[in-house]
């Protein structure tokens, strides 16, 4: 008997904190992806990224994507965290943790999830440029 995959989606305000250890019984591979705000965007220095989500839909879509990834790649668990609001440079705004019996489906499922998310999940980002911030002071 195969247990149902563990699925968890959380949108939260501001930078993501560290993750508690993921426990997925029987999983042999746990892969965690973290997206961190880089210091430049389009060649300009930024202070932060501001994320705007169409929230109920973003949550629905992330959850159905997580289920689809679990089905398609036979994953034991898919855990998604995404920031909304302002996330400063160097902070984490997105975390995806995938648990799986073996390595290959975990890595493939992760790549598939992120690619699909970029297309299908209504979360938009807007750079907060450093110079704009200085001008507005």
């Amino acid at each position, binding site marked *: 008997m195969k247990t149902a995959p563990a699925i968890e989606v959380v949108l939260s305000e501001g930078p993501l904190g560290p993750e508690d250890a993921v426990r997925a019984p029987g999983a042999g591979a746990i892969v965690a992806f973290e997206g961190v705000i880089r210091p430049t965007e389009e060649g300009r220095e930024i202070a932060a990224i501001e994320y705007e*989500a169409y929230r109920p*839909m973003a949550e629905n879509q992330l959850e159905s994507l997580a289920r689809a990834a679990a089905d398609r790649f036979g994953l034991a668990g898919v855990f998604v965290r*995404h920031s909304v609001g302002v996330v400063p440079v160097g902070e984490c705004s997105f975390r995806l943790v995938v648990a799986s019996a073996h390595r290959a489906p975990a890595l493939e499922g992760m790549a598939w999830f992120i690619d699909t998310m970029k297309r299908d999940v*209504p979360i*938009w980002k807007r750079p907060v440029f450093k110079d704009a911030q200085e001008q507005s002071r």
Partner: protein
Amino acid sequence: MTLTVRLFGPYADAQGERELSVDLPPEPTVSLVLETIESRYPALSPLMPSTRLAVNNRFVPPSHEVREGDELALVGMVGGG
């Protein structure tokens, strides 16, 4: 019927508003809603080729008919993460 369509991110920036009120014949298809928006709101038209209409928090086929009270939003050109 008059439909309210929510705008976010680049849509809200381009239009300078958070929602549109669009007059349409009763129970229009998703295609008709998108075409109507494209023709009436020139500020949005550069974004429309990659835009989908979300109906009640889901993507639906172009032939889907929109009803009174449905929650509508323009989605596409996303890029979270």
